[in-house]
């Protein structure tokens, strides 16, 4: 069955949380299944947001309010999900590496990953390798995202990945990296699986790394 979710998608893209919430309630009342609202409405809208951001057509404030609008809708849809047995695409453990308190870039990546349908475990900033490892085990994560702001702190990405290798996790999880000083070649050097230039690209990279 097809549903007309265009207005809902546009409300999320515009960051109009009130309108998105009202439309979500209205569509639920019209018996549109919550998983359809999420997958064909919210996630599709956030994919458009990510693409527009990557193309330089919208900016961080636009992305944040779009993610906020999506989150408002998710807050009323998620409690309904167990009934329809919808599962996230995968679980991602995300954090800014040890010694680095940079938060914004990592938060944007979290929002875009959530917007793409991933379950995200956000460990925050200044995260030690052992904390990543613990979270990967605890949440059975398939993907890890490492963020760093500075040339000096991005070296913690290397030590984090080395810790994954030592703990035997390396073959079990995919690793993506990003942040101001990080480059594709640095990602290869430290044996990460992928590099994303910004939050918009991160969601696409996550899907590609997991063949989703």
């Amino acid at each position, binding site marked *: 069955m097809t549903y007309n979710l265009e207005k809902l998608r546009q409300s999320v893209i515009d960051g109009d949380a009130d309108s998105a919430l009202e439309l979500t309630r209205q569509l639920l009342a019209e018996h549109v299944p919550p998983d359809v609202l999420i997958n064909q409405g919210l996630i599709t809208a956030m994919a458009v947001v990510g693409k527009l951001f990557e193309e330089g057509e919208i*900016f*961080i404030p636009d992305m*944040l*309010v779009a993610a906020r609008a999506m989150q408002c809708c998710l807050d009323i849809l998620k409690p309904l999900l167990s009934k329809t047995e919808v599962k996230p695409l995968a679980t991602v453990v995300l954090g800014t590496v040890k*010694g680095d*308190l940079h938060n914004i870039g990592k938060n944007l990546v979290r929002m875009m990953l959530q917007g793409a349908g991933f379950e995200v475990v956000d460990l925050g900033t200044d995260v030690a390798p052992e904390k990543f490892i613990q979270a990967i085990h605890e949440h059975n994560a398939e993907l890890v995202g490492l963020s760093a702001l500075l*040339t*000096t702190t991005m070296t913690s990405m290397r030590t984090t990945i080395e810790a994954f290798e030592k703990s035997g996790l390396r073959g079990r999880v995919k690793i993506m990296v990003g942040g*101001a000083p990080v480059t594709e070649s640095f990602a290869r050097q430290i044996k990460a699986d992928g590099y994303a*230039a910004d939050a918009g690209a991160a969601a696409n990279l996550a899907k590609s790394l997991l063949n989703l």
Partner: protein
Amino acid sequence: MPDLLLDHPTPNFEELVRVLKGEQPPRRVHLVEVGIDPEVLQTIQEACLGEPWALPRGVHVLEKPDERYYRQLVNLYYRLGYDFVPIWPFWVNNPAGKVRRVVGTADESRGTRDWVDESEALIKSRADFESFPWQKIYAASETFEMVARCLPDGMKMTIIATLFENVFEYLLGYEGLFYLMSDDQQLVEDVFNHWGKVVYDYYSSMIGLEAVGGIFHVDDMGFKTGTMISPADLRRLLFPWLAKYAALAHKHNKPFFLHSCGNLYRKSPSVMDDLIELVEIDAFHSFQDVIVPVTEVKARYGQRVALLGGADMDKLSTLADADLRVYLRGILEACMPGGRFAFGSGNTIANYVPLQNYATLLVEARQWKV
């Protein structure tokens, strides 16, 4: 410890300005930094000059203007070969933003590092804005008087402040600014205009001093792939103030330099085009190779604006000596012809730049045959 200091420096700020304006071909490589980390300065001071640093180790912010500190600061910039020393204001009655401190992880780090708390803000509502002490904030003139007394012949100070950075780092906070751009645009505009006026008043009161060579305004506008807010919003909120600051400097026949990190080169006209045409900056500082290397910016914009610095922070921090020399010479080869260029780091001499690499940058500049 590498030998970093010159015995007989010959600073000449006026010549630097003529070179940057294209009025005179360079006779040597002029050096520029908008900042050298206090830890780096302290290490050079104590190792090369054998005099204790005026500030306790790990203390980066003065509690009040301190002439001994400024004397050391000016002397180090002088002995390192700079034509000017960048001077930050000492703000009086300015509520402090929240910072967090962690131990530095860099191999070269000599202590801790302060981080702006990105989720915190001084102004979260109209009520906060109304009660903020806008009228009471001013830059202490003693700072600039003290520096003026310390400057050797030929050397000047440039005066520094931030507008956009102060709004997103302290006044509204990153997240606060980004959400308020949608939720309360008037509050955002009012905060920009009130802090813009504070900065304007400070620049106005100091630009006439003979010891002040010009304004070196610092406002990071972007990140690797774009600007933090849209170019349209930058034009509306920030550029009118930057243009006023530039006009003020020009009225006193002094230059307006601008530092901004980030990708300002997307689309056409780019933000860089705006800075040149609308703001009328005289020189631009901050380059990251992952965005656009200074050599490419020189080729694209070098006829229209002077460029300052250029050596990518990652390369400056990580390259082995031989590779670093090749890299630095490549910049000088591309950017020195035609003048309108002064050399230095792409950002600052941060505490994680190995001193040997900083010495290599200085030596390459000093030995370059024009």
